[in-house]
């Protein structure tokens, strides 16, 4: 088993009610596994999970990335202007002032 810390932002932070949580995952777990595990533990965020991208050490990583013990993972919701275009996830810029 490995332990990673997971930072939560925006809607995810609000729904789970924590800024950072710890998660135990099997050895060799990927970002995708982390996401599924989080959805099982907090069903309220399940709808958000497909839109999230993941960063480790301030660098975006793919869902296939294998996690290491002690990793600090950030789960990043789409930015209004479409940050996720970076990883070809989805990019629906909202109509926004400013």
């Amino acid at each position, binding site marked *: 088993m490995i332990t990673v810390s997971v930072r939560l*932002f925006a809607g995810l932070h609000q729904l789970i009610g924590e800024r950072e949580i710890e998660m135990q995952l099997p050895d060799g777990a990927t970002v995708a596994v982390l996401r599924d595990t989080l959805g099982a533990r907090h069903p309220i965020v399940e709808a958000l999970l497909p839109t999230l991208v993941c960063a480790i050490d301030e660098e975006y990583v793919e869902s296939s990335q294998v996690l290491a013990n002690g990793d600090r993972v950030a789960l990043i919701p789409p930015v*209004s202007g*479409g940050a996720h275009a970076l990883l070809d996830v989805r990019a629906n810029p909202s109509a926004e002032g400013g």
Partner: protein
Amino acid sequence: MFAVTYEPLDPAPLVDAVRRDESGAVALFYGVVRNENMGRSVQYLEYDVYPEMAVKKMREVADEVRAKYPITGIGVLHRVGRLEIGETSLLVAVSSAHRVAAFEACHFAVDRIKQVVPIWKKEVWEDGEEWIEGHMPGSERTEAGE
């Protein structure tokens, strides 16, 4: 100068920081909280941020702008936390020898910042609230006002 802060933004030190003696023009952009979006009356905004990555992405955008336009300086400040109508959430300053490059580079920088910097805003209305996140699937749920 690239920073994220919970305090009100002050443009003066930002403009000083981007100006060089070769600069003939500075374009400064203010993103401001307005009282309406998509036909709904906004009470206030709440911004959340991934601070370390936000500053890193601001610097990457600055590098991109420097590679694309002949500028003499660039800086970005973003405020987060609760912001009332009329308060400034974003300042982007770009200096150049000439005004065309200053305007175009500043506009491009603002567009890119809104695309790649991990900062999110929640609109709070009288009867509900919503995280504005590129229309993520959960938005219908939060729209109901949890």
